[in-house]
């Protein structure tokens, strides 16, 4: 069980030092000058960033800085007022959330969203059908449920909660629910995972378990994590973004981030 943060290597970042940097090479997910306002309040102000194919990227900022809105814009549940979103190089600005999900963009939510009254394995299996657009009539002779459940069990086991798969999600602890949500996000083998405050509500010990899970997941794909726990975030990320009042205020590696004024500001308020 981890009690101290992992070793810091020469670059100042512990994880993902070999991960590609944003802007260099192909991007699995990118946005250019996206803007979104709600009734006069500018939630996201001309933000541009690129998420490379692999690695763990941290996104931090105060509450209301626009992080969740940015995720919503990237995932497609909210339409941008202006700007564009690209997935794998293709213009995905007009794509629905469903289409983006099927193109490999997965996400978890700030407050856990699971289907009540159903087991964890069912919740996860719903996300990994071989053919999610199958006609309902066709399900009579090709139900797809068994292989989906197989994959669901595998994902749950990979995250260490295989023994909870058969339980109803309503009875699970918050930690187990968050891991279930994470399993649901990775089971469809997405190319990019957007994790919105996945550690919120968890204890320190639980956070390190989660951090490990996220690091493992990021070995094969891009993972962008929004978090308020800067210790945890900087210890696992290979690159940091910071948002202040809707704008992207910082984009760079972790060590420089730790020395930056943005970081001090975030810390300062934290300790206040």
């Amino acid at each position, binding site marked *: 069980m981890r009690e101290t943060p992992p070793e810091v290597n020469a670059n100042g970042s512990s994880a993902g030092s070999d991960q590609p940097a944003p802007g260099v090479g192909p991007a699995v997910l990118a946005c250019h000058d996206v803007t979104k306002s709600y009734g006069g309040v500018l939630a996201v102000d001309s933000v541009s960033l690129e998420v490379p194919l692999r690695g763990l990227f941290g996104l931090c900022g105060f509450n209301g800085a626009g992080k969740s809105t940015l995720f919503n814009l990237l995932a497609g549940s909210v339409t941008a007022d202006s700007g564009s979103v690209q997935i794998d190089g293709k213009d995905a600005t007009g794509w629905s*959330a469903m289409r983006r999900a099927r193109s490999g963009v997965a996400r978890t939510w700030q407050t856990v969203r699971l289907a009540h009254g159903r087991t964890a394995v069912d919740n996860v299996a719903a996300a990994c059908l071989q053919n999610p657009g199958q006609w309902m009539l066709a399900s009579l002779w090709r139900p797809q449920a068994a292989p989906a459940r197989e994959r669901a069990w595998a994902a749950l086991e990979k995250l260490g909660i295989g023994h909870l798969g058969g339980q109803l999600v309503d009875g699970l602890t918050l930690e187990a629910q968050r891991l279930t949500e994470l399993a649901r996000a990775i089971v469809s083998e997405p190319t990019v995972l957007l994790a919105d405050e996945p550690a919120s509500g968890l204890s320190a010990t639980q956070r390190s378990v989660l951090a490990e899970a996220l690091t493992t997941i990021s070995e094969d794909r891009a993972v962008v994590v929004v978090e308020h726990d800067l210790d945890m975030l900087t210890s696992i990320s290979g690159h940091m973004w910071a948002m202040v009042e809707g704008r992207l205020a910082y984009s760079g590696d972790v060590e420089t981030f730790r020395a930056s004024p943005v970081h001090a500001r975030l810390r300062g308020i934290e300790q206040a």
Partner: protein
Amino acid sequence: MTEPAATDRSTISGPAPSGPAAGSSAGPADVLSGVRRVRRRDPVPLGAGLLIAVVGCLVLVVMDGSYLGLTVTTGVGYAIVTVGMVLQLGYSRQLAFSQSVFMGVGAYGTGVLETKYNFSSLESLLAVIALAAVAALLVGAVVTRAPGLALALATLILPLFIYQLATFSSWLGSFSGIDGVAPFWTGSDYTATLVQTGIISAVLLGLAAGIVLRVMRSGIGLQLMAMADDERLGESIGVSLRQRRLEVFVLGSVLAAVGGAVLASVQGIVTPDVLSETSEITLLLMVFVAGRKSVTGVILGAIVIEYLTTSTSFISTNLGIIEGIALLVILLVEPDGVAGAIDRLLGRRTDRWAASLQTWSAARLGTRGQAAQGARGGGNGAGNAA
């Protein structure tokens, strides 16, 4: 994950396991672990459908054309409609009040085709299914685009003007409707034709139940479960909301039409009452009181309520009051209806039975109880094939 065992699995725990499965020495822990807390859900779809059809046939043969048999067969007609409503209302939470309208489409369709165009029973049944499917696609394509509350409100209004259209149309027989609809099985002996019509109706019911259960247990059923209460969640995992909403609407409506066709054949007459709000109210009550998520529940509920409506005069005159109170009680006490209450009471017992069964079989099979048989098969609804 490189070393899952090394990190704190122990800190991730669900509620403590219950029943004799915990601490059993019979087999390896993970064989049984998936079985804890598993509810017995609906039985294997094809088997259930077959069972319903067979039981229905037996019951009707026993009743042998009596008045009770007629009532039960009419109940079967309503049951087909309510089975579709389990998928629509109970499972997918699509609040639409259009089932009575499609029931009318089925009933009037059968009536018109048989009396005016000399279709046979089978031909009119197939034609009605096709007609309802097309109508549901057209109506559904428009109606399911609207937000949930708008859909509910609009379909509340639908029976009002469809009913008036039917009563004003002389081609549809106005208030007296269409008479002389042939039963499914024609013959000179009234009793025999009634029984045989009943048998065919029971078979149709079994088919309907089988289809709905199959859909609910499939991968698409999982998608419906995910999007039912939280559409944003559904779309974030790749579910096409528009497609599913439309499909659920069409399937529910087609089943309603089949139910209407059965009613027409059993009663021999089609009147505008089948399209009225009272008709829709009756259907809603059958579904809510019996348990909107349970297929077997609504079948029994439909038959029982149909029986109560036509039988003892005390209940039928005061049916409105009784139904209203029953609905309120259900909503407050057990929103999943009588079936939900039974399921909850029995659920705890069946958990233990399932667990001890697994213990017993694991002990019998010894080392053959590997992961392949154990956690997976036990965890997915007590081993039912999807």
